[in-house]
């Protein structure tokens, strides 16, 4: 089985993330880049399947600028993926979801796959839509936001907890799934993995190699303005001297936050 795992580089959420207010784009240089944690969990799903079925190839796929991405992606290889494919092209700067989905779809077809696994949402852009878009573009079956996953030769099944219900479902392969952070943490790369990663195939493709010509007429989502919210300041802080509960109640009452007993 061939599994493609979609990896995403994001600014580390432990640092401050900044937007360029002129372009509405992430300031990549301002924050430490890391693999999005959820995409590491997606990779963990693929790697644990390969432990059960040695006849599995795990390919990392990412789209993004040249800069730090190759080094960031190496971590995925060190964790155990077999090879990596990085699509980069200056024309992709500021690409919206539709263009990104088109590019990933073309690259995934170039690689070939039985299953594509992605995170259900990224920490930098809400997200959660890309796996669904790919499902549609491929014309295959998909399952979004799985909190458990079972993979066998012909099908993938799993469970999904939505806001209103929860269900178990399965799809026939080929297919696309996205996983939530209910899935196990990813393994850490060990020394052997880190050494091995240096020799693993790492393919870099541009749009021409994928046969993509950006159509200027296509509908795109464009940023029309970006503004920074004023930062929040700390207010009152007290040490509990035995009456803190009463003081909070007083603060709530002053701010009209205690409602009458209506119900």
């Amino acid at each position: 089985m061939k599994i493609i795992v979609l990896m995403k580089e994001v600014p580390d959420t432990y640092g401050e993330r900044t937007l360029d207010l002129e372009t509405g784009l992430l300031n990549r240089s301002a924050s430490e880049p890391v693999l999005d944690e959820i995409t590491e969990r997606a990779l963990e799903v693929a790697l644990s399947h390969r432990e059960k079925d040695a006849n599995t190839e795990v390919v990392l796929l990412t789209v993004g600028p040249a800069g730090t991405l190759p080094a960031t992606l190496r971590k995925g290889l060190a964790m155990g993926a077999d090879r990596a494919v990085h699509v980069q092209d200056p024309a992709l700067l500021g690409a919206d979801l539709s263009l990104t989905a088109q590019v990933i779809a073309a690259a995934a077809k170039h690689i070939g796959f039985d299953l594509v696994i992605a995170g259900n949402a990224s920490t930098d852009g809400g997200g959660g839509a890309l796996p669904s878009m790919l499902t549609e573009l491929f014309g295959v079956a998909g399952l979004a936001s799985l909190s458990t996953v079972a993979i066998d030769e012909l099908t993938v099944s799993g469970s999904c907890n939505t806001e209103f219900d929860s269900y178990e479902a399965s799809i026939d392969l080929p297919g696309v799934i996205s996983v939530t952070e209910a899935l196990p943490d990813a393994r850490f790369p060990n020394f052997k993995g880190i050494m091995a990663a240096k020799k693993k195939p790492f393919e870099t493709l541009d749009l021409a190699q994928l046969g993509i010509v950006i159509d200027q007429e296509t509908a795109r989502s464009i940023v029309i303005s970006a503004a920074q919210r004023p930062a929040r300041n700390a207010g009152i802080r007290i040490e509990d001297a035995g009456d803190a509960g009463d003081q909070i109640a007083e603060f709530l009452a002053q701010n009209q936050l205690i409602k009458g007993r209506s119900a």
Partner: protein
Amino acid sequence: MIGYPANSILVLVEVSPSGQLRSGAAELIGAAASVGSAVALALAPTGNAERLGTELAALGAAQVLISETEEHASSVVVPAVDALAAAAAVVAPEAVLTANSIRGRDAAARFAARSGSALALDAVGISRDEEGIIAHHSVYGGAYLVDSAASTGALVITLRQGSSDLRSEAQPSNVQQLPVAASGAPEATITAYRETAAASSRPELRGADIVVSGGRGLGSGENFSLVEGLADALGGAIGASRAAVDAGYVAQTMQVGQTGVTVAPQLYIALGISGAIQHRAGMQTSKTIIAINKDPDAPIFDIADFGVVGDIFTVVPQLVAAIEAKRG
């Protein structure tokens, strides 16, 4: 033939397998009606069109399209995408709006890919200017406000649940059955199903005016009754940190933060939560924040309007008693 106004906003509302409207329809229709004429679309089992039409008109839908299908209960998303495509073809909407829920987002994303439309995710509001519909987003934990629009064609927008207070006036009922040609796109098979929509008397976390959240400091699932007691005294909803979810104290659906629910209530109370940046990302635009934590250096104090350095197990019971006393 009926016509649809040029400013139609097509709104996909969610319906349970038995044909009941899910919460969230009023918010979606209210937002749509604030910028145009709301055309609500619902999928439902046969026999529900009239009733749903009346309910959706009462929420402000100028027109209602119902796709009655027996597949509704057994499918995940494909019939909804097919219905969106069929509805968009007759309505020619200026924008398409769904909830940013798991199903709503799945349907919106697939419809955008199928129709080649621009997609704006997780909006916290919509408006219009001379050139058309604009989606407003609150990004990086609310640190930035970003507006987006489509370069051409209808913008497909998913609206963050509980982010918009706009509600529309009732409209006269105007319901049509929508014939939908099945695309035949491969679909998942549901093998087990359970309703989880809370039979709780507490408000839903998303959109609640008051949220009381508990973290690892609670120490156990049983101790979460402390959080519940305070929430009930204030008529609030319950939230949690990821550490509390990971430790199994509460369900994942209660997680507030970067990878959980984003809330912006009038009042947010954090109990035994350190205030990691990823937690703050989901609550720092709350109007008033109160924190109780025994560590004076906990980062939650940096954004709290009222912080108490103290033990939740002594402060909270006193607080609950004082609230009851003030309410009389």
